[in-house]
């Protein structure tokens, strides 16, 4: 254990800050500004903390670093175990990066219950960082579920008209997926006990050491993949996303698109694939098919959206499809591209939501048809909008290009058919984004309401400049991010290289013949259940 429990501090800081916020007396909203500043200050300190983590990170090591491990519920082998590797490091940094921006962008747009708003934002940040840092399946699940509550309130209380519907749909969809994952997690711990002779463990690293029997891999992988696919969201599990995005307040959308969706892909990469490599290899073509459908479908649906926010939301379905495709390729390029695209999507889509939020703050509408010719009235905002649009499309030199390129490269090496179809998504994204950009910003100012719009305020410049800077940095110097990821990704690739999908076919076949795959005696490879196991009281 490190001398300073850095990771625990990162999780605790926003949480403690949130609780402290509650102590500020602000019954009638007289100290809203102060509360906002305090929350912003906490989130900036948090961001500095994540950067500090980065500077202390050894980029050559594939192991988990800053590991903290304390027994939590020892009778079940549950630990409070945290650690960071090249994959999770940048997701933590991304969370730290986006939260202050989200808080800053809600400066003017959130009027009611500001204290509670900031409270939920900080609690959310704490839970998100916890998800990325957990090295224990139980702990991971706790953070995974705990994160739903603040997001639910953010959408439900501070969202737009149909916010309640969206909030309930969000929480029920996500939970429905994740409880099946919980069963699989419990099953996995039990499998560990069977394989090792009686010791239960939820530790990620310990679970990687055991060989999960194939019939179990089949079901466990399905449960995990479903939970993560809903979160991603992978086609056809995406229907909660447009509702949640459109109804959420700007800050909520930024966090939702920027960080929460990454938890799905992160979960696939961190847990579903390495824990069940054979099942993953077996299911990869199916997942990739869904991903490719999502890429094209998301792009086509985006094209016809009249609402800018919905357009960005559907474009996320498309972009996240790329990420999943890269994961399925399971080679270095694909995985690097995926992780890079996760970060890059967080930056560009976060930026797009921020811009749409700014327009919507001014006009109280997000319909494309309501705008036009904005470049004449607000040139600075449009310039920022332009850079972010290009970054989202994947223009070389900006962040989006690197990820998409690597993913397509990886996918091509794996199966050129997927890469070919996915590549059309790149073209389509240029079409819908540029078309939207053109309709909103070019031409004459037709709607008189747009004539007097104010350009970027100082505060908004502070919101958008970091995003643009990040987009450029990630575009021109990708190796800053790619190098530290590499060892961790190599480790995953090496593990996946040992996968034997052919053996899965037999297990799947057995299940289709009506042989119950769950703990059927014939398939069990580990020793039979041991009588002195702590729970084998029967």
């Amino acid at each position: 254990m490190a001398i300073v429990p850095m990771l625990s501090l990162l999780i605790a800081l926003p949480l403690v800050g949130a609780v402290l916020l509650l102590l500020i007396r602000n019954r009638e909203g007289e100290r809203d500004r102060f509360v906002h500043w305090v929350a912003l200050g906490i989130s900036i300190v948090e961001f500095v903390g994540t950067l500090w983590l980065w500077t202390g990170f050894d980029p050559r090591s594939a192991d988990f670093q800053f590991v903290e491990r304390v027994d939590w519920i020892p009778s079940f082998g549950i630990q409070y175990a945290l650690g960071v590797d090249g994959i999770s490091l940048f997701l933590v940094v991304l969370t730290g990066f986006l939260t202050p921006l989200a808080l800053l962008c809600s400066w003017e747009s959130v009027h009611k219950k500001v204290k509670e708003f900031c409270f939920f934002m900080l609690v959310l940040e704490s839970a998100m960082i916890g998800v990325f840092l957990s090295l224990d399946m139980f702990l991971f699940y706790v953070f995974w579920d705990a994160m739903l509550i603040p997001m639910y309130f953010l959408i439900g209380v501070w969202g737009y008209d149909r916010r309640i519907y969206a909030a309930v749909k969000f929480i029920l969809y996500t939970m429905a997926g994740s409880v099946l994952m919980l069963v699989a997690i419990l099953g996995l711990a039990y499998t560990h006990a069977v394989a090792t002779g009686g010791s239960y463990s939820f530790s990620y690293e310990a679970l990687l050491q055991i060989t999960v029997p194939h019939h179990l891999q089949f079901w466990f992988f399905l449960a995990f993949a479903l939970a993560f696919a809903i979160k991603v969201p992978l086609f056809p599990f995406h229907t909660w996303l447009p509702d949640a995005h459109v109804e959420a307040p700007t800050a909520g959308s930024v966090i939702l698109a920027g960080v929460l969706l990454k938890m799905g892909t992160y979960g696939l990469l961190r847990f579903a694939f390495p824990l069940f490599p054979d099942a993953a290899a077996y299911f990869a073509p199916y997942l990739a098919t869904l991903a490719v459908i999502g890429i094209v479908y998301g792009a086509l649906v985006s094209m016809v959206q009249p609402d800018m926010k919905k357009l960005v939301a559907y474009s996320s379905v498309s972009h996240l499809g790329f990420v999943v495709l890269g994961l399925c390729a399971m080679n270095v390029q694909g995985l690097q591209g995926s992780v890079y695209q996760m970060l890059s999507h967080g930056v560009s889509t976060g930026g797009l939501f921020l811009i749409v939020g700014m327009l919507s703050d001014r006009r109280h509408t997000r319909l494309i048809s309501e705008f036009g010719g904005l470049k004449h009235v607000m040139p600075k905002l449009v310039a920022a909008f332009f850079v972010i649009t290009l970054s989202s499309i994947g223009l070389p030199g900006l962040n989006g290009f690197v990820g998409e390129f690597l993913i397509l490269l990886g996918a091509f090496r794996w199966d050129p058919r997927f890469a070919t179809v996915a590549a059309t998504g790149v073209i389509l994204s240029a079409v819908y984004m540029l078309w939207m950009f053109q309709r909103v910003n070019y031409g004459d100012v037709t709607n008189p309401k747009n004539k007097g719009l104010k350009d970027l305020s100082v505060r908004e410049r502070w919101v958008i400049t970091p995003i643009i800077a990040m987009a450029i940095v990630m575009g021109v110097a990708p190796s800053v991010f790619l190098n530290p990821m590499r060892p961790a990704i190599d480790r995953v690739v090496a593990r996946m290289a040992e996968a034997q999908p052919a053996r899965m076919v037999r297990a799947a076949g057995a299940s289709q013949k009506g042989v119950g795959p769950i703990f059927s005696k014939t398939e069990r490879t580990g020793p039979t259940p041991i009588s002195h196991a702590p729970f084998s009281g029967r």
Partner: protein
Amino acid sequence: MMSPALNAVIPVICVVLAGLTCMLAEAFRERGERLPIGGLGIIGLVGAAISSVLLWGRRAESFGVVVADDFGLFVGLVLIIIGILTIAFSSSLIERDKLPQGEYYALVLFAISGMMLMAIATDLVIIFLALEVFSLSIYVLTGLRRESFASTEAAFKYFLLGGFSSAFFLYGIAFMYGIVHSTRLDRIGAAMAAQSGAASPLVLVAMGLLLVGFAFKVSAVPFHMWTPDAYEGAPTIVTGFMSTAVKAAAFAAFARVFLSALEPLRADWVPVVWVLAICTMILGTVVGVAQTNVKRMLAYSSIAHGGYLLVALVAGNSAGKASILFYVLVYAITNLGAFAVIALLGTRDKPVEQLDDYKGLWYSRPIASFMLTVFLLSLGGFPPTAGFVAKWYVFTAAVTAGEYTLAIVGLLTSVVSVFFYLRVVVMMYMSGRVEGEAAPPLPRTALAALVVSVAVLFYLGVLPTRLLNLAASSISTIF
């Protein structure tokens, strides 16, 4: 010093004495004089708690029919906690609703004494006796608002159906006696274990009758019919009391009878309880979704929670048995807290029971809304509340016992149940501000009890180890 023969029942005696004192205090007080009668009850309960702790690990036996093992004492302590919380919540409510104080506290204490006895009884006749002691008290408590038609009807319905179930139970005892020539659980267990081959039809009949009796008390489907009406009609705080205490006591006896005496017949009763568990979870949840009255909604939710406990019973391994204890405690604190908030929010003329009554409550009663939210999230099983750990514990037991179907059904129904818990949250936080007269603050005692409950829920949600270990070690004493 009492004779050793009485050791096992000292905690029960403490509670009975407290009940009697409350009754006498009420009888002897001057007209208009205000006596802290509830305080007397709490003193008695604390005495019972201390004596339980002193008895811990000693396995005191009385008359061969009562054994104060750690399991019984654990449940007893849960019941004492329920009692203390109930009294703390009630003090202001009784005055508000003009309920007869002395009788109220005495009945609560008598009910608790019966329940505590039920938890430590190792003889079917004593179990029946205990069952009747607490049931009769609760019938009366249900109908305590005599001027209210709903309350009277609920009490009558509960009484009639409860009478039937008692008859079933008694009939089961009679059959059992006919077969084994004893009503003591250890002798029944020995006789059952000695049986070779399939169980005789007579044994199955006896077991079935006992099962019906218990299923009624824990409101398992299809014996749940009385629950929504009785819960809705009873004074709200009584609903909270009966939904938690009755479950705790009944499950304690249920577990003791079925997991020790009838354990040899496991293969015969598990399929039945399995079906009951599935039906209970599904019906409790699905019908709960349709409710617009929050009390009824919580009644169905409590049916569903009974289903989760049945899952633990079916799992039957050591994690399953221990999870019954943990779950019962967490559920007691959570549900009692929820009912208490509902009771405290209303006034004598205007109870806050319909969903619509919760509109914009966050704006007028932020603290009460926050607490209710914590209780509801814990009922729904969200981390980091204790409800999550409790559910997780139950489903771990199910998975390790290979009961994947039960675990999956249980988890999916808990997702659906989230829908109706969150509906109250939606009403409180998301449906806009409703202007109205300023709400009275929460009474101090009740507020303190609520704060403690919330703190305990978070504590057990984050650091459950000690209690989990305690539950696991105490459950091992009966088998």
